[in-house]
């Protein structure tokens, strides 16, 4: 049963997964080239100084990538289900709606996490060649809100798409944008160091959010 669900979700997102992996690897290579270019252009010392004092984020190109991947995966999974009422097929399957929704979302979330693993390992490996631990550590702290933003937007987008009524959708879109943008407001490194866990607490509960639109669909509430 779950095998089937994974199978169907995989069919919907497989191209996006491949494209994200390729895009990630290309971007990682690009960042590495860029670092080398900077070091040659301005010396390694100045490059470090720019990073430390001017708070240049050499990995800023990745800032919105989790957000984009999260949104795209969610859309590829749930837009085909909701268009032409196809979700009726899924909701009629002999499995409870909650298990169904949760397992569908788990598949997308899992692939999002894999992209995170690639991104984070790629960045650590690239960075360790050129930079000391302090800079690598600040990178990890700095990208944390971006990664959290990707997870948040994945579940928010899923909730928005699964919601059957447009008025609710619009409310949820506004709320989703308003919340997610809070995680992308940094102007330098480590700025979310002490508060990121507070932002993570609500996000931990976001997966449960997809049940309510499912319930509304099932009961025909518009």
């Amino acid at each position, binding site marked *: 049963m779950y095998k*089937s669900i994974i199978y169907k979700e995989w069919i919907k997102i497989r191209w996006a997964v491949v494209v994200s992996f390729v895009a990630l690897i290309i971007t990682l290579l690009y960042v590495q080239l860029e670092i080398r270019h900077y070091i040659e252009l301005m010396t390694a010392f100045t490059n470090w100084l720019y990073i430390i004092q001017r708070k240049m984020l050499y990995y800023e190109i990745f800032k919105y990538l989790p957000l984009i991947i999260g949104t795209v995966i969610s859309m590829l999974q749930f837009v*085909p289900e909701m268009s032409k*009422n196809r979700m009726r097929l899924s*909701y009629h399957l002999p499995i409870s709606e909650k298990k169904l929704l949760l397992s569908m979302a788990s598949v997308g979330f899992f692939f999002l996490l894999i992209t995170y693993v690639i991104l984070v390992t790629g960045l650590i490996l690239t960075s360790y060649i050129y930079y000391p631990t302090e800079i690598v550590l600040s990178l990890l702290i700095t990208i944390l809100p971006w990664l959290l933003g990707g997870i948040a937007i994945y579940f928010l987008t899923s909730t928005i798409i699964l919601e059957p009524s447009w008025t609710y959708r619009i409310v949820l879109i506004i709320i989703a944008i308003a919340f997610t943008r809070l995680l992308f407001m940094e102007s330098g490194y480590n700025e979310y160091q002490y508060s990121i866990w507070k932002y993570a607490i609500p996000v931990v509960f976001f997966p449960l959010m997809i049940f309510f639109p499912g319930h509304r669909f099932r009961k*025909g*509430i518009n």
Partner: protein
Amino acid sequence: MENVIELRNLTHRYGNKLVLNNLNLSVEKGRIFGVLGKNGMGKTTTINILMGFLRPTSGVCKVLGEDSHKLKPTTRAKIGLLHEGHIAYDFMTIKQVEKFYSNFFPAWKREYYYELVNKLHLSDNHRISNMSCGQRSQIVLGLIFAQDPELMILDDYSMGLDPGYRSLFIDYLKEFVSVGNKTVLMTSHIIPDMEKIIDDAIIMGHQKLLLHTSLKNFKETFHCYQLKRSNATDNLHADNTISNIETIKNIVNLYSFKDSEQIKKYLKIQNVSINELKEIPLGLEEAFIGLTGKY
């Protein structure tokens, strides 16, 4: 006799708009039911409630003994649904969609699916989104057959199908239910097709049920009487005897469940000349229109 579907005082409103008003209906096991109703009579709402995608405002809608809006997964496995527009997972291929569904149903009958689908002469890797509506209807029907459900609810199965696929659909369905023990509830705008297969007709009027009877009984007891228009006929109106009156130029059609003797008696009382009264034979479609009116 066990009732597969049971509606009791089913009422539904959208906001303040009443769509269904105290609908009562029981559907026995093992028969094929055609739900007939003009647009706007609450047919879609009823089907949505039956399929479990709408919780009624009040009243009861039991399907296989459970409230339709909270069917257990095991009960859902016993119900095959054909959604309006032959909804399918378009992004899957013939093979993929079968593989997907098969894991959900322990009694999956793969051969039923492929029996139907093979007749399309398409490759197994053909995507459903690249199929015609008729081809897709075969896939959907094949999946329902493979599920081997006790109850099938087929909503507007004929939508978008050309006559060839329509009759193919009916043929397969007929064959499938001939095993017995299957209950089918279907809707369509193509009544002559339905006439070929349904045992019972359920006719919906405004917000309520007009008639629920066997097709045979309906055709036997529902009559159309034709006579010349006169001042007296203009005074006639629908009542307990006459279900519907239709006046076209100089001809008046009276639709009624009464036999010709009763009608003659009735007309005499109403001072209508019965000299030219004659009974017109009715098909199901004409009978349906006669009962519900054209408008």
